[in-house]
């Protein structure tokens, strides 16, 4: 189950504002996504409570 109330709506909006910052913004978004992929194994998910 996804707990909607625990999701910060600002996260998605910050991402969108970066993407809409033009070509450079798109690069920042891709770089950010790439870093997340590279570090995915190191991230330990914490249970939502």
């Amino acid at each position, binding site marked *: 189950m996804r707990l909607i109330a*625990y*999701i910060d709506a*600002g996260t*998605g909006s*910050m991402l969108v504002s970066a993407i809409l910052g033009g070509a450079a913004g798109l*690069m920042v978004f891709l770089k*950010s996504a790439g*870093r997340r992929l590279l570090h995915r194994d190191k991230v330990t998910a914490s249970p939502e409570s």
Partner: protein
Amino acid sequence: MTASFDRGSFRDPASRVQIDGSRVIRILSERGLADWETVRASKLFASDRVIGSTETTVDGSPALEHPRIRFWSYPYEWSFTMLRQAALLQLELLEEALTEDLTIKDATPYNIQFQGTRPIFVDIGSFRPLEPGEPWLAYRQFCQMFLYPLLVNSYADVPFQPLLRSSLDGISPAMARTMLSGHRRRPGVLTDVGLQARADRSVKSRDMRTELSQAGFKKELIVHNVRRLRKIVLKTEWDPDRSTWSDYAHCDHVATQRSAKETFIRQVAGERRRNLIWDLGANDGHFSIAAADHADLVVAMDGDALVIDRLFRRLSESGPGNVLPLVVDLSSPSPAWGWRGAERTRLEDRGRPDLIFLLAVVHHLVIAANIPLTEVIDWLAWLGGEVVFEWVPPTDPMARKLAVNKKDWEIHPDYREEVCRTEIDRRFTVAREQPLEGRILFHLIPKG
């Protein structure tokens, strides 16, 4: 006079506004003071687009003093062009702030007020230094509070005022997407509406500020975004051919009575200077403008958003600059609401008028809105000012038009001239009355 905190300013931990008689004081926290010390040299504060600030102290605490706004208004009382002007001011100030490595930490129209037709940014506490790699944190708020209301009004002809009056956070991306589903090709819809609505559903919470900063986010990206949004806002427009009341001034009965009413209004208004006049049911603002020379401010209210928008545009072009047009449904004026029912102040508590015009309105309140005549006169007396009141009898052709689908027993029985006079006599002294083609103009002075 005892100082009291403004009930709408508590959300910002860095500063809080206190009202002390005619003084408006912003008490700064340690953080707020640090921000102010960094931003106070900015060129922005020398501009008349931002409210003036004088440094002071209150009980040893650092504070700023601002000039008092004569009459506060809220975005759900603004017309389309007013909200559009406010959005452009917000973007303009942000872009200028960024050139000095400053930012505006929020993006809400509640931080903007109109002095007549001129928008002015009033929340000095919103300016702070931009941190390196920091994204535009208020982008979402700008969309919900400015952009989406403008888009739904402009593209889908959905009035934004009831939406902003029912939600302090404005219109959500999901709601905007639904309302704009038939307008996907219009500027801003796929990007600022669609992308955000999708991101709301699919992006999990994470420390995006740090992530974007590490990925090389720069302020130029915010500038690009701000310029892009400015273009979208400039492309929005709303000017339908007509509305219920947009042609009212051209009706025969209005044209024939207008001159006599204007003479009456000019005589009453010219008796002495007033601080605040309310023109209720102002329509094209003819009487507001006629009285403007004799008041610090005239607030011209009408429930029809189009007539108020046209009035705003006309006043912006040719003045006078001391008339503030507002979209207000008199049968349901803006209430107090928000946190503990007090974050936003009811219309009547934002400044009582010393003169009120209620011309050709009473029959609409009684017949169309089913408000008893006694209530109307009681409300006028409670407001406390003098009143120019036009009595429109039930036999008046326009009153009969309103009642065409009502049985006699469906109209409040107090809607009679003798009741009107009795109720007026209980609360007012009649300074003057003048018959007008079956109607009566009264100049009323409150008793006591």
